[in-house]
């Protein structure tokens, strides 16, 4: 299945674009997506934290992703 992942802040700079289109196995989990992205872009593994957000909520590691989900990679936040 095809996923679109939105990227922000330092994650966007590491990847070099503001969104990624990926083809992943059906039933891919949030943790599986993270592992794949860290393998492809090793500097992502150096961040203090990296979360997957699905439809505006932080995703549990075992959450299954779906093609129509709004998926984003959330590097350490620093608002305020």
């Amino acid at each position, binding site marked *: 299945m095809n996923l679109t992942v939105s990227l922000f802040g330092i994650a966007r700079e590491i990847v070099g674009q503001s969104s990624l289109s990926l083809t992943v196995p059906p039933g891919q989990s949030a943790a599986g997506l993270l592992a794949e992205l860290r393998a492809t872009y090793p500097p992502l593994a150096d961040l203090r934290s990296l979360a997957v*957000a699905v439809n*505006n909520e932080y995703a549990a590691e075992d959450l299954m992703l779906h093609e129509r989900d*709004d998926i*984003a990679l959330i*590097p350490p*936040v*620093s*608002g*305020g």
Partner: protein
Amino acid sequence: MNANHHIALTDQAIDVAAVLHAAESAEAGAVNAFIGTVRNRSEGRRVVRLHYEAYPPMALHQLARVAEMAQAQWPMLRRVAVTHRHGTLEIGDVAVVVAVSTPHRADSFAACQFIIDTLKEVVPIWKKEEYEDGTVWVSAHP
């Protein structure tokens, strides 16, 4: 969506008085506000300006959720108003305003602090500090 919560993101200068006004309630004897501004130094380096990047739909959703958490913990909260800036900010600019109202003051201090502290942990907004000789995404690395 709670009608007593006023949550906003803006790329324009924040009207602090308007945020305070949004927090007022005839039932509240206390309005407490936190105003976060851009300072000119960070860990010993001179900051020239800041850039805030937001993921707007999730930031608004998570801000509303933080307000709901505060409401659950302090049921006496009358109104919650939060406005966060994004885009490029100069030294002294207001980056965020949190304002709450409660019948008595102790609860309003506590709820206001909870909201700004929790905002900084969960709301997808990122701060990039610009120095004279480079830029750094704040808190990105251990």
